[in-house]
């Protein structure tokens, strides 16, 4: 094993050493860091004030996350604001799990509102962790830790250790790749089992593809009723137990408004996207560990996106 690990490290080092020729990009788009990691090509690009993390190609189309250097607190992408809106369901989570780091927008955003919360972030790709630390306003602290691990494995370990969370954020999907074992009934049930009563789950996914009904049916199967926010992305807010009514959301939104506004989150905008009703067929198949062709389903109806 030791020998294997050593060989692997050498291979890793070789991989990391492969310099990437920057791809032709828009004239004003500057690539300031590029790396071929074990899982993907990683680019950090800069366009004036805007710095972005991009996977696969250094173009604006595949941006994972961005921040404005002059205003790093502002949540640039709507999906990040939609994810933060999960605090309307429970404004004061003490233990938080985030699956998928990206540029660290979500953990840093949450840290801004919740200085004392314990935050665990799971990221499979060590090169993404490095990029977030080196090029984005992301940093660990005594209560904010990044774990380099597969999300599913981390959750299984948490079950074994008996760790529970008040808020779980799932943000592990890329533009067109879904880790299929992170979108099954069994996984969501595992996640639910590490959630405290009333804990909230927020998931960042796709708004329009052949996967939509399957994903909806799978979340409904584990969590029952959930809130659905649809824009370019889709964000699901669900709860372990009874879903908070709109009146609770309104009250919490009012309380959070001053802090949220500084970061560009407006409850009015979020509530416009909000939909609690079921918009998928009754007989939609639930995704399971046995049946999870998520990527094939997601590539269907892509032209509508």
């Amino acid at each position, binding site marked *: *094993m030791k020998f*294997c*690990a050593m060989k*692997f490290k050498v291979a890793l080092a070789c991989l990391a050493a492969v310099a990437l020729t920057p791809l032709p990009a828009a004239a004003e788009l500057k690539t300031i860091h590029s790396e071929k990691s*074990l*899982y993907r090509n990683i680019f950090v690009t800069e366009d004036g004030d805007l710095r972005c993390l991009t996977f696969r190609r250094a173009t604006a189309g595949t941006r994972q996350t961005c921040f404005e250097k002059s205003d790093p607190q502002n949540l640039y992408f709507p999906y990040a604001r939609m994810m933060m809106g999960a605090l309307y369901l429970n404004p004061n989570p003490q233990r938080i799990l985030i699956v998928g780091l990206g540029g660290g927008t979500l953990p840093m955003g949450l840290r801004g509102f919740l200085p004392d919360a314990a935050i665990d972030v799971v990221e*499979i790709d060590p090169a993404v962790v490095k990029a977030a630390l080196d090029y984005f306003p992301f940093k660990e602290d005594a209560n904010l830790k990044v774990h380099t*691990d*597969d*999300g*599913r*494995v981390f959750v*299984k*370990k948490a079950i*074994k250790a008996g760790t529970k969370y008040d808020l779980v954020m799932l943000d592990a999907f890329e533009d067109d790749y879904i*880790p*299929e*074992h992170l979108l*099954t009934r*069994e*996984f969501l049930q595992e996640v639910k089992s590490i959630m405290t009563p009333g804990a909230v789950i927020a998931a960042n996914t796709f708004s329009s593809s052949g996967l939509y009904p399957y994903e909806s049916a799978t979340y409904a199967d584990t969590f029952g009723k959930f809130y659905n926010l649809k824009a370019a992305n889709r964000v699901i807010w669900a709860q372990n137990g009874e879903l908070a009514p709109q009146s609770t959301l309104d009250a919490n939104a009012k309380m959070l408004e001053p802090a949220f506004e500084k970061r560009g989150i407006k409850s009015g905008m979020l509530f416009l996207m909000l939909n609690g009703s079921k918009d998928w067929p009754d007989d939609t198949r639930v995704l*399971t*560990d*046995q*049946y*999870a*062709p998520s990527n*094939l*389903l997601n590539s269907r109806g892509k032209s509508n996106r």
Partner: protein
Amino acid sequence: MRTFAVLGISCWSGFLLMALELMSGRILAPTFGSSIYVWGAVITVFMLALSIGYLIGGRMSMSEPRIAVLCGLHLLSGLLVLPILFFELPVLDGIFEYTQDPRLGSLLSSVILFFLPAAVCGTVAPYAVRLLVKDSQAAGFYAGLQYFFSTAFSAAGTLLTSFYFVLILEVDQILMLLIGVTVFMALSAFLISRKSTP
């Protein structure tokens, strides 16, 4: 007719091997994730199993090669997939209890679940070559023919499984389908060869 039967088994054996390898990644993912380590472990174990299978199959072909034995080996490779259906979850849970390291965990799980069927798939190839070769002059030709059919069907097994089977069938159903066709191929090859050599 005999050649036809031997090549038929070669084809399906190649298909079975790669379809099983693809499914093994799926089977391990819920427990050990789908990191590069898990795929690395799966491929390592399959390659190791095949290499040992080749050695054993080659050795077996030295004494009185018979098509009935080839059919038996093929049947066995299919039947060895059966335990995966029953023991996959307890094995994976047990190993996760023992180690949460995705490298060691997926290596151990792959050895326990997939080594035997993959190794027996490996025995088929050299044994089939021995049955095909009639004179040593043409040995290379027949070896090439066997490789061609088994590897072309490996490609088909990979493509059909990853693009189509997973869309309509569950993992266990795909395994059952693989077992069923393997049993059918082994038995029909046996019957065909019996008929042609009374």
